[in-house]
């Protein structure tokens, strides 16, 4: 029996390791194979991009060798899928190989799509890839003062990133001694500064305290690069000297082009995590269309539920539990305090007061990312 995992990021790696442990006897006896196809031999710790963008981390610190994160029983190849043939239970890869599967899990992630807003790719700095984060840092270094506008598209991965980059920019300009020459202006798509109500309630007064201005109900429409003006769908506009964007995201092109889901989001059953209409294809991480945070923790909890279920399908022919929509995220509340929010489909988040202890735990957890990918946490 072939279990094919497409994508070697957060979701795919945790799922593969989880399955390799649960199915160790079946792997040893040759009854089961776990095959992982990915697009890179390296695994990126994506939160590191925030630090690269402000010069606090070097790009090479974000990576580990993907093979080193995987159980030895997993057959790993860097050979991205170029075509999904769901009716034939197979995929075609870049090298030209056809790989058959009995069960497939897709975790190809998401990518920013600045090209969807006129002028954005030319006019804005972004930091969701290594190259753009390095470029943003170089631009920041040359910036001597003026109005910095931070703007956010929908959907995007990592709901905390807009607030985090804004607070990090505040610190960056302070450290350079030019904070008084910089106006920081934050825009956000909905009617408060963050989607989680309690986070917004904490962040807005924090913005006021730090002298960060903001405009809510602001959805990017176009960037007038020549005049340095950002216009919104709501009919307002804002001038900028430096524009920093978290553009709207899409799933991978191979998903979109193959007709698996509009904009690359695959219609996914929210509790069973199977692709709608397919009972041997599962989806996890950013590329689902489930209306929850596109975050590593989402991919992690989905991978745990799927690991249990796919192993049970192999062993007894049926899944054993539902995914309950669990998401957990740390929220940095200034330099040395943090809190967290944990929620699922039926229980809203109820963040506790920020504390130093949670801040230290968050820092430790960052370092523990690699253990978590290995499935040891």
């Amino acid at each position: 029996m072939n279990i094919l995992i497409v994508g070697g990021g957060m979701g795919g790696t945790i799922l593969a390791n989880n399955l390799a442990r649960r199915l160790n006897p079946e792997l040893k006896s040759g009854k089961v194979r776990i095959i992982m196809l990915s697009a890179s031999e390296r695994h990126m710790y994506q939160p590191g991009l925030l630090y690269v963008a402000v010069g606090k981390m070097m790009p090479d610190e974000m990576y580990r060798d993907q093979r080193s994160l995987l159980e030895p029983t997993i057959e790993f190849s860097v050979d991205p899928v170029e075509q999904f043939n769901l009716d034939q239970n197979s995929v075609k890869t870049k090298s030209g190989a056809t790989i058959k599967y009995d069960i497939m899990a897709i975790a190809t992630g998401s990518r920013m799509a600045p090209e969807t807003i006129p002028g954005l790719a030319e006019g804005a700095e972004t930091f969701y890839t290594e190259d753009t984060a390095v470029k943003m840092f170089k631009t920041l270094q040359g910036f001597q003062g003026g109005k910095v506008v931070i703007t956010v598209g929908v959907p995007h991965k990592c709901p905390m990133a807009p607030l985090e980059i804004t607070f990090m920019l505040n610190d960056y300009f302070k450290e350079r001694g030019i904070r008084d020459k910089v106006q920081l202006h934050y825009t956000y798509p909905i009617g408060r500064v963050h989607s989680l109500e309690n986070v917004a309630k904490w962040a807005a007064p924090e913005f006021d305290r730090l002298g960060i201005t903001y405009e809510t109900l602001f959805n990017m429409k176009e960037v007038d690069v020549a005049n340095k003006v950002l216009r919104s769908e709501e009919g307002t506009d804002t001038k900028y000297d430096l524009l920093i964007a978290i553009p709207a995201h899409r799933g991978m092109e191979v998903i979109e082009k193959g007709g698996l889901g509009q904009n690359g989001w695959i219609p996914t059953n929210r509790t069973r995590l199977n692709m709608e209409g397919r009972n041997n294809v599962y989806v996890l991480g950013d590329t689902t269309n489930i209306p929850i945070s596109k975050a590593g923790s989402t991919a992690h909890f989905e991978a745990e539920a799927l690991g249990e279920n796919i192993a049970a399908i192999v062993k007894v022919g049926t899944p054993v539990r539902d995914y309950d929509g669990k998401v957990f995220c740390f929220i940095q509340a200034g330099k040395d305090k943090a809190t967290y929010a944990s929620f699922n489909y039926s229980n809203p988040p109820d963040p506790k007061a920020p504390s130093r202890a949670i801040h230290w735990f968050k820092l430790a957890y960052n370092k523990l990312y690699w253990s978590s990918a290995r499935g040891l946490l």
Partner: protein
Amino acid sequence: MAEKKVIDARGSFCPGPLMELIAAIKSAQVGDELEVLSTDQGSAKDIPEWLNKVGHEHLGTTETGGVWHVNVRKKK
């Protein structure tokens, strides 16, 4: 006109029903009808507020069994 697109945002706390609508409406055609399902009472207020500001049409909101159905037409 395409058939009504349903955006099932029940149980979505983050990004939440309004963000789901904002994302979906971009891919819709002018004239399309969309229906947002939300278990958050706040949607009954914040979705129409945004529609009004941005210039799409609010076709009405109903509630059954703790689920709000917010109906929308894309106008531009």
